[in-house]
């Protein structure tokens, strides 16, 4: 076949240019280490790399939420720990105040100390989260979440928890109202109290549950009655007589009714009355302290009232401390969960970057060897081109 000279030149130059283009592409790929420099290099790989890259971005964002949540939970855990210590101090102060030999002035001093502890607790409850919000702000509080009013501490925000993710449980606040204002009152099952009108110095303890199956959940009145000259105890359930009817009073003797065991101590007088009501989740730590403080500050309080106040105060402190500890444990377990989330996010981030790298990164070894092949090929093409084009019959026509 004849070959047209012009066409041969053109074709050779074309193929040399093609080789040069291939080499330039290979070089670009090697310089930035990417196999995929534009989607058309490998459409599926490019899409996979893009998805992995965007997942990586999302994971980084989620990790920021995890960090924020962890900060909040760490602060909350520390705050609850401090609250526990303050409550412990309050408890010790109450125990000291129960000393029967204290004068009203000495009780006043103890009351002042309790008041001091109370304001520290309130400051803790209103602690900020360092970013303009409140640690115990629940689902939102514009000012402080706990307002100290003459009628007691009232919640200024909305209860519940603010979460940082709709898929994972990542709180940025803790439910302050549940923690500070909603411990279970009494011993957790029922609450004992002395009637404020009591004239004697008798006082009732917090009571214990002796038979859970027999509990009725009703309201009880423990009345001190005169049974033919014998100081006796009668217990009424919702106004109706129970098995304990005219039981002779002996200080400290157990009164067992409907699965509850109560102890009445001191010197009650006829007509004194004590109540037993079902426990409710409404024990407000501030209110509990306020109640004790009010009695301790009252110079006219008789030993019975003082003992009742101290006893109720101790019972409440215990309940609140238990409640706080549970909340602290929850914050701790939340921290654990966040650590797990953190670990998972790290794994996912590694996964995402691995997928991205697998999809778009260049296999350097292969690339270098391909490039060298191309180089050799290009060199050979150049040489043969020069050699072949040199040959012409005109060179021999002399």
């Amino acid at each position, binding site marked *: 076949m004849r070959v047209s000279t012009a066409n041969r030149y053109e074709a050779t130059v074309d193929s040399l240019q093609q080789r040069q283009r291939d080499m330039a592409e290979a070089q670009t790929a090697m310089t930035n280490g990417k196999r995929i420099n534009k989607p*058309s290099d490998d*459409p599926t790989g490019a899409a996979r790399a893009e998805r992995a890259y965007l997942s990586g971005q*999302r994971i980084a964002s989620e990790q920021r939420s995890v960090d924020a949540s962890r900060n909040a939970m760490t602060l909350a855990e520390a705050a609850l720990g401090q609250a526990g210590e303050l409550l412990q101090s309050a408890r010790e102060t109450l125990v000291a105040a129960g000393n029967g030999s204290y004068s009203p002035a000495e009780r006043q001093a103890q009351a002042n100390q309790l008041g001091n502890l109370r304001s520290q607790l309130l400051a803790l409850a209103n602690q900020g989260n360092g970013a303009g919000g409140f640690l115990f702000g629940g689902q939102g509080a514009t000012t402080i979440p706990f307002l100290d009013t003459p009628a007691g501490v009232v919640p200024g925000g909305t209860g519940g928890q603010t979460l940082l993710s709709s898929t994972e449980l990542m709180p940025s606040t803790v439910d302050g109202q549940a923690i500070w204002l909603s411990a279970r009152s009494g011993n957790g099952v029922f609450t004992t109290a002395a009637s404020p009108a009591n004239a004697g110095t008798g006082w009732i303890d917090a009571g214990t549950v002796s038979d859970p199956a027999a509990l009725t959940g009703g309201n009880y009145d423990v009345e001190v009655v005169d049974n033919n000259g014998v100081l006796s105890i009668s217990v009424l359930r919702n106004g109706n007589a129970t098995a304990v009817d005219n039981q002779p009073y002996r200080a400290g003797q157990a009164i067992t009714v409907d699965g509850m065991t109560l102890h009445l101590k001191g010197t009650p007088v006829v007509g004194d009355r004590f109540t037993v009501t079902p426990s409710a989740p409404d024990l407000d730590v501030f209110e509990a302290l306020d109640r004790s403080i009010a009695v301790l500050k009252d110079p006219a309080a008789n030993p019975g009232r003082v003992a009742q106040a101290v006893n109720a105060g101790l019972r409440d402190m215990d309940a609140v401390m238990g409640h706080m500890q549970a909340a602290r444990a929850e914050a701790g377990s939340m921290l654990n969960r966040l650590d797990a989330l953190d670990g998972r996010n790290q794994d996912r981030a590694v996964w995402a970057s691995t997928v991205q790298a697998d999809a778009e990164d260049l296999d350097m070894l292969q690339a270098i060897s391909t490039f060298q092949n191309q180089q050799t090929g290009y060199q050979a093409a150049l040489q043969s081109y020069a050699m072949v084009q040199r040959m012409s019959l005109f060179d021999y026509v002399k």
Partner: protein
Amino acid sequence: MTTSSLMSLGTTALYAANAQLLTTSNNIANANTPGYSRQSVELSTAGSAYNGSGYFGRGVTVSTVTRAANMFLAQQAVATGSAAAADGVRRDMLSQLEKVFASGEAGLGQAATQIFNAFADVATNPSDLAARQAVLGRLEDFASLARSSSDQIESLQANLVHDVQGGLAEVNTLATEMAKLNLAIAAATNRGHSPNELLDQRDELVRRIGSQFQVQTVQSPDQTVAVYVGNGQTLVLGGASFKLVPQADPHDNSRIGVAINIGGQIAQLPTDAIGEGQVAGLLRFQQNDLADARNRLGQLVSGLGLALNNQQALGLDLQGQAGSPLFKLQGPQALPAGDNARDDGGNYIASVDITIADPGALVASEYRLEPDAANGAQYTLTRLSDGKVFPPVNDGDTVDGFTITIGPNAPAPGDSFLLKPVSNAAAGLTVVLKNPRGLAAANPMTGVTHPANTGTATIAALTVEAAPASGYQAMTLRFTDDAGGYELLDAGDNPLATGSFSAGTPIRHDGLALALNGLPRSGDRISLAPTSHPAASNGNALRFDDLANRGLIDGTTVADAYANVLADVGVRVQGAVASADNTAAVAARARAELSADVGVNLDEEAARLIQFQQSYQAAAKLLQTAQTLFDALLSSVSR
């Protein structure tokens, strides 16, 4: 036999050799001239004379100069060149288009993801104005990237229009020249010899027209060539040529099409009929690739932008007001075809309007709406991206996420409308919310579980799925048994609804959805109330963040949708490169075959040069011999 006949014979030989040397030199001179065909001298014997002892040859005559021609190979070269030009230009345009859809940090996928991420930061601290400002910045990033992507697409469109116009102008010039050449060739042929240079020039013109526009050529007996385009419209006939004119597509005047002006009658050439050539490649790119790119971008922008706007409307801003829109999008369009019926004032009689009903169901396509011939009140709707024909639609129907409204005047038979639900969305995307306080990060409703609850149920999410018909009002959810039975009470404890809760399914009422974790017990209460501290609520910011995981774009997440766009564009480019390589190789081979047949090989010419030089020398020797003989004769006579 005389010396004079010897002399004349030598002269013819010398003349023939000279002619051959001239032709060979011309071949050598034109070795690199585009379109030049190798020429050769056709010789024939000059007859013979009878002189009793036989017939004596009288030498050689130069009959004519012919060019090497191969009609079949030439036509093949033109046709394959057309196809290569079409595929090549599409590849070039697609490579440009590919740059519009960047991947990784520079891509729209990243810009969208950054919006969601910025909302996650707002959720962490909803009252932080810096975090809110960051969201606005991300929205602006997304909008400007979408706009610039759209601008790049439109600048491709503008370049394309320019290229088509340039291509048509070139074809017109070439066609005019060709008509002139036809006349010259016819005249020259009449003189008895083939005008080789003119024929070469005409072949070259056909090739150049063919690289712009696919042509059919027919040779007439008078050696003129007629050129036909499209469905057989005449471009050149003898000495007459007609003009191709750029003309807007009758169905979409933003697109360019091609028409031919034959004696004042302008006939549109359908894109499909244009075949191959650069202009055809550009038009195909415009019709398929560029339109798809515009629609994919628009679908992405509409899906995300409208979902963000909807979510914004369901939340409360820092002032406790329902959110005002974040984005302003250019609305969907319904374009009447250019040949729809018009009134006396030249305005279209019928009109169609479309509105977006469900941004998540939008498809990246345009649609054609025509009255259904079988039923006057119904319409045929065709999705142009895949050619799907929907069951006949009525006024007010919603298809693929948009609602079609006909009227007030309904289209008459023969009318058609091009519906563009998403095409223009990216072009006019602007962020209209400028105040970071206006971001609706707060949930309008807040749910609180009652502390006295005995069950373990906690609120996983209280979501506003649609603005409640009865407004946001305080309600209490009370469980009436341990199996999950509940009643929903209004503020006055009047029952609004009852139902049964099953784990994993949110409790829904009037646009609100309450998802619970854990198990409720009988008597447990959850109070739902309008949010009293919108500055501290992050509920809606979380919903915004969660949009990243939702199928906003025709059932896929924004990230996946964008990755799909990348893959789609990549596959197109890959395919275009492959077919361009393929057709270029075919064209190169056809060209090589043609030039092998008709082109100049310098070695061959060198050999011929030697050959003809020797002929010339031999002829000269002949003359010398004749002269010697003549001299000998003269000297013998003079004695």
